[in-house]
């Protein structure tokens, strides 16, 4: 494999990843698509889901992304995500515990405002869990 795809993963806070990879599967809002080198230029929003990156050696990395978009141009693929967590950093048990806590928060919330906020956290955690 001589030709590799230039892939960059950027969050608002920093540049998370910048390397040459074989292929990337992006959870586009209108369906998943896989990008290889010399892909036609595309600009797509993303739904929360897993980005799977196949490295040069065939090793696969899974990264959870939420809120953002992907741009493919002649130079490569750029994914801008508001949030990105590496799947290896996610612990199923810890997540389940967090969800339980969040559920309690929603039930205990004293005001509507707090409730909405807790609910948002809970939804977010559930999205994560479904992705694992």
């Amino acid at each position, binding site marked *: 494999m001589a030709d590799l795809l230039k892939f*960059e993963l*950027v*969050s*608002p*806070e*920093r*540049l998370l990843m910048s390397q040459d990879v074989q292929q990337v599967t992006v959870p*586009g*809002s*209108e369906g998943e698509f896989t990008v290889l080198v010399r892909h*036609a*230029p*595309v*600009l*797509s*929003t993303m739904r929360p889901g897993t980005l799977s990156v196949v490295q040069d050696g065939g090793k696969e990395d899974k990264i959870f992304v939420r*809120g953002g*978009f992907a*741009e493919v*141009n*002649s130079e490569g693929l*750029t994914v*801008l995500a*508001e949030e990105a967590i590496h799947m290896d950093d996610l612990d199923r048990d810890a997540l389940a515990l967090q969800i339980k806590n969040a559920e309690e928060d929603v039930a205990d919330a004293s005001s509507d405002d707090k409730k909405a906020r807790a609910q948002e956290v809970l939804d977010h955690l559930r999205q994560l869990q479904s992705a694992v």
Partner: protein
Amino acid sequence: MPSLKDLRNRISSVKATQKITKAMQMVAAAKLRKAQEAAEAARPYAERMDNVLANLSQALDGQEGGPELMVGTGKSDVHLLLVATAERGLCGGFNSSIARMARNHATKLIADGKTVKIVCVGRKGQDALKRQFGSHIIDFFNMREVRQIGFTNAHDVGQRVLELFEAGEFDVCTLFYSQFKNVMTQIPTTLQLIPASIEANEDDAVAASGSQACYEYEPEEKDLLEELLPRNVSVQIFRALLENAAGEQGARMSAMDSATRNAGDMIDDLTMSYNRARQAQITKELIEIISGAEAL
């Protein structure tokens, strides 16, 4: 003529002040490095966002009925000023120069017969504007507890601005912040958030124009733009807050540096007059002894 004891007291109090300003300068220097790193790390995202938006807006150019966030409501009667300042003082003219700029802008708009609404981010800006425009301030974000500004902080502010916009509370939104140039210089800057001012970078526009024509958009350009523009508001606010954070520390560092230097000068002056007074007293005592001996 202050007594020797007075001078001694003043010297020790100025020395204590100097220690404090020196410590504050060093703290600011350490924080500045962190803030600068954060600002630099955030740059790629904002740049890519700008590029994509520039591409998109070019693709949509000439089409009618773009999203309101981009073309505006068609009026400019109600202006929202988003004033981002620091939470703490003792940083030279940093806060006051941002506040002054906002104040001038607001005064001009009011003179033109427009309605002005103000949202403050950071306590110092609110303090400065409260007296003159107290009734115009509609919201206030406190960042006091925030140690390192994260995207969520900016997102909260952005969300609030969008809510107000959707409720038809204003037509034009302008952001006031301080652009971080270097440690010594921070430039108070205005940025029009809504309708979005998208400047296509000349080089990028040329480079992109080749590939841009054949972009496939998923979903349609218009939907995409509608999705991206609200996000862009948060990104711009985030960038402004980070620049502000770096600028604040830079301004504090140079302010505290000159304060330390001033305290040093003052100590030198005071020590000089202390020594003079001390020698004068010794001379006086000697004269008294000698003239006493001569009188015998």
